[in-house]
């Protein structure tokens, strides 16, 4: 080969190689940047709304449908159920009508389902979860954020207890009767049910939608983070600040709810009176300061976390495992108890 030909070949080779190398570098850099920044840029839409007396945050992403439209639909569904199950506001509330009826009332299938579910949880938790404490809740002023809170007299509490308790609720098919002027307040379960229904709606619109609903700390997962990672959920330290965490769990599906004595409460003479009542005493439950439950559905986690808070760490709470739920309870001294399966959620 002549010397000039050899130079030409070398030149061409250098040009081709340079193009190949530069292309390779650009492709790899582009892939690297995409891998890094796509983690935070997936189109999650966030919508906040006050529903069920708390701030509900919907965080949702969908590749098939407009995530904003999904979030709007979810909020509307929760508002529908808030209005339907509000115990103290008239309007379209089925529960308000029931509470003010003088005889049996025939309710729709959805209401019958939720009342039956409430009574089921009342029975298996020996009344620790009780949907018929409306009179007591109103007496203490926890029926609305605007109502003045006060410590009632023991006579007033005894009288309210006569008209309280799930034993006063009877349901036969869709016919519901309330005895002894009892009032239903499904606050400990209706929010969980409403969030579950909103998540069901999101999945109906797009089965691959991902995200979560955070209803005042009660959380239901729509789907894994970016479609593949578990959501990292902090459990608030009941005696710390709002950003202080006492534990972490990872959920790609399912729900988690916490009941605590540190949010809705008032103090008189240095004593804290919170909003979760012991149906046996008529006073705020004192056996624990925080109870967290993980379950497949928020309706279950919601009811069981209330029950676990009232019961404190006990055989009944340990038995939640048989219902497919896991629990963590912090007692009044700050000691932490967990069901065996709870720790499985603490690993990513």
């Amino acid at each position: 080969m002549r010397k000039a030909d050899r130079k030409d070949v070398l030149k061409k080779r250098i040009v081709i190689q340079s193009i190949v190398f530069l292309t390779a570098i650009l492709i790899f850099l582009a892939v690297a940047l995409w891998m890094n920044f796509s983690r935070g840029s997936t189109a999650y839409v966030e919508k906040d709304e006050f529903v069920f007396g708390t701030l509900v945050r919907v965080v949702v992403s969908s590749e098939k449908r407009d995530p904003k439209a999904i979030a709007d639909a979810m909020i509307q569904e929760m508002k529908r159920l808030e209005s339907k199950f509000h115990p103290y506001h008239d309007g379209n509330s089925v529960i308000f009508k029931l509470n003010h009826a003088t005889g049996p009332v025939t309710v729709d299938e959805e209401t019958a389902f939720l009342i039956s579910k409430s009574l089921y949880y009342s029975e298996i938790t020996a009344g620790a979860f009780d949907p018929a404490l409306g009179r007591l809740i109103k007496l203490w002023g926890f029926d609305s954020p605007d109502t003045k809170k006060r410590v009632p007299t023991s006579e007033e509490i005894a009288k309210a207890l006569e008209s309280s308790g799930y034993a006063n609720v009877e349901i036969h098919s869709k016919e519901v009767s309330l005895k002894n002027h009892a009032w239903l307040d499904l606050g400990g379960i209706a929010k969980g049910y409403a969030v579950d229904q909103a998540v069901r709606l999101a999945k109906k619109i797009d089965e691959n939608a991902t995200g979560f609903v955070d209803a005042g700390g009660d959380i239901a997962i729509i789907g894994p983070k970016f479609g593949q990672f578990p959501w990292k959920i902090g459990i608030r330290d009941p005696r710390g600040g709002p950003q202080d965490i006492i534990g972490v769990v990872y959920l790609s599906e399912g729900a988690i709810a916490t009941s605590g004595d540190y949010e809705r409460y008032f103090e008189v003479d240095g004593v804290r009176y919170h909003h979760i009542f012991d149906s046996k005493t008529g006073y705020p439950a004192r056996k624990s300061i925080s109870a967290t439950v993980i379950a497949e559905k928020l309706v279950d986690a919601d009811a069981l976390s209330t029950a676990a808070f009232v019961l404190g760490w006990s055989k009944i709470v340990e038995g939640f495992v048989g219902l497919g739920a896991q629990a963590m309870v912090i007692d009044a001294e700050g000691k932490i108890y967990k069901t065996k399966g709870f720790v499985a959620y603490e690993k990513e």
Partner: protein
Amino acid sequence: MKRNDLQFFSRLDLFFIVTPIFIAFFIAAIPQASGKNGVVTVYISGELVYEQPLTRTATWVVKSDGEYLSTLVVDGSKEKVKLVDSNCPLKICERTGWVGIGGSIVCVPNKIVVKVEGKTKASEIDIVTW
């Protein structure tokens, strides 16, 4: 022509291919920046009514239709915010205390949401159950 001159891939070529792969994996592995750049936003009934950088110390009176609702304090040096006073009955928002990036203060009766937004590390908590 020497044999090496006509070989398409030499050791140096391999170096140029392998190096970008390593750089790519390195970049992919970098956690997202935890840059502060915090912003305080205040919403009343879902409507944005106030916004300021987290680094600027300020006191802002939250009003709606001329009615006093609460007082917000931003401590720029600590990059935290607090509702120091509120006309709501339970004062849950006041008791929330100081919150930093990623936190929020909610006043349900007044429908106020104070958010402290800013970039957080990918490894941080996504949601808090309480």
